[in-house]
């Protein structure tokens, strides 16, 4: 059982499987080290393995070579304890140190690589996440450690430009008009809070101001692109039966998720019980129609606000836009309009993911073997 280094680790995992109820192999290492009864020898083996890996990777890459070697031995232990404490508090299954096992991304050092870890993990995570709910503590900026420049640059560079993903060239006002996005409901159905977004009322029909829609849609697409770029989980919601299949198809094409069926009460707020204990909730929810089938606001809008999840939503003239983070005033009833939205979201998400892969390749980080989209 304990022949080679990797196999030793695997053996350790197998042994601890009954203790931990995690699905992912990688997570077990962390749980291993976090439990009070962990074997010291296993820890030492892990550290040795990581150190070896670090040496191998520093031979390949010249980036943070010297520093990392110094950091490997010293910083390793305290950092991991910190992680342990954090993760115990979080009561989530952490996956920070997946990379050594996954074998796809060479590590510089566990300490330094926390930012790199999360970033290089993302492409891997996206493949795995497609099949199981995986928690991950995403570090937005490596503030605690010496910043690995590549990872930080990857994250921060897109934020500098106003339209890094050039989403404004994906659609024009004419496209919106042709897709009948400007057509609202009748005057009697109008929601008080939608009045600022309306251009006027033509013989009783509300007309949505497309100038405002263009701006809002650009903002929404930009936000979606950035979240997808950072490997966020995106959930499409629409309770319109007419477009259920379209929405599901869109989500499948992007490599993201969709929920077009009956929304059970606690899906977001009670996720820990309705799903697994360490479920990762979506990082962005896109509503292609904010109403449910009885013309009331979809429960998920309120729930997303409760769970601090930003939302992007197409709000028609009879919807309440107040809780939607990035509302897009527009028609949600016409097939042409819905197809336009689905196409736009699909294109932005795919574009963002492709960009991410390109940036990683440019930075010299390993490209994932199986991209999810």
């Amino acid at each position: 059982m304990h022949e080679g280094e990797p196999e030793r680790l695997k053996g350790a995992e197998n042994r601890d499987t009954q203790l931990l109820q995690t699905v992912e192999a990688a997570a077990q290492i962390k749980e291993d080290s976090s439990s009070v009864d962990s074997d010291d020898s296993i820890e030492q083996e892990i550290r040795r393995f990581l150190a070896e890996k670090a040496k191998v990777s520093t031979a390949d890459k010249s980036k943070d070579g010297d520093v990392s070697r110094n950091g490997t031995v010293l910083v390793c232990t305290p950092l991991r304890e910190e992680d342990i404490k954090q993760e115990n508090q979080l009561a989530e299954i952490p996956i920070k140190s997946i990379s050594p096992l996954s074998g796809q991304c060479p590590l510089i050092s566990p300490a330094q690589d926390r930012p790199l870890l999360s970033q290089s993990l993302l492409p891997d995570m996206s493949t795995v996440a497609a099949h199981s709910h995986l928690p991950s503590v995403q570090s937005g900026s490596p503030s605690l450690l010496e910043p690995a420049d590549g990872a930080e640059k990857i994250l921060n560079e897109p934020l500098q430009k106003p339209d890094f993903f050039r989403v404004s060239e994906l659609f024009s006002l004419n496209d919106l008009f042709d897709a009948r996005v400007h057509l609202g409901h009748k005057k009697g159905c109008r929601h008080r809070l939608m009045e600022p977004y309306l251009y006027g009322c033509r013989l009783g029909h509300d007309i949505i101001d497309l100038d405002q829609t263009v701006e809002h849609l650009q903002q929404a697409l930009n936000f979606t692109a950035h979240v997808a770029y950072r490997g966020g989980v995106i959930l499409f919601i629409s309770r319109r039966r007419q477009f259920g299949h379209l929405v599901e198809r869109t989500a499948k094409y992007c490599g993201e998720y969709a929920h077009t069926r009956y929304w059970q009460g606690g899906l977001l707020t009670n996720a820990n019980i309705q799903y697994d204990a360490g479920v990762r909730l979506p990082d962005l929810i896109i509503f292609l129609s904010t109403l449910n089938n009885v013309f009331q606001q979809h429960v998920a809008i309120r729930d997303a606000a409760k769970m601090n999840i930003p939302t992007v939503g197409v709000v028609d003239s009879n919807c309440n836009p107040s809780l939607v983070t990035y509302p897009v005033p527009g028609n949600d009833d016409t097939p042409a309009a819905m197809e336009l939205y689905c196409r736009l979201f699909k294109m932005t998400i795919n574009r963002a993911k492709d960009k991410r892969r390109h940036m990683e390749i440019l930075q010299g980080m390993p490209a994932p073997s199986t991209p999810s989209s």
Partner: protein
Amino acid sequence: MAGSRLERFGTVFTRVRDLMRSGVIKQSEKPIWYDVYEAFPPKRDPRYVKPHARHDIKKQETVSEIFYREDKVRARFYEEYEAEFFDLSKSNFVSTCQRFVEKYTELKSNSEMDDSALFTETGKALLKEGLILRRKEIHFISEESRSPVLELELTDMLAEQQAVGADTDTPHTS
């Protein structure tokens, strides 16, 4: 994970920001979207708006009606002529009404006639171009027009009765 489920206080961003400031959410647990929101905030803060309970506040018409100058012409057109079909599948489709309106505005800019004369002029001009406008037939239901019909019916009935009277002697052969 720590969170704040108060959707009616502040926005998603302010709650997460304050939780981070107070240290409940660590920097490493910062959500993915936080930096993006900071860099590109929405036009309007997504705060919860309480619905107005009372409706006796005078309703301000903030959404204006959309009317065009050509609507007057269109109204007259539909009074006089029959409406043609609209083919909505073509985005550049021009209906007869629209053509009428365009001709009308053209003539109006060129000549100085008054409205009714202009109206008839446009009708003639369109006929010349080959566009046939069917005049709307207005069916009056008034006493004068009904009586000839009634008369015809009565005479028919009388004729029938006389025929029947004549036929009572002779057998029916129909």
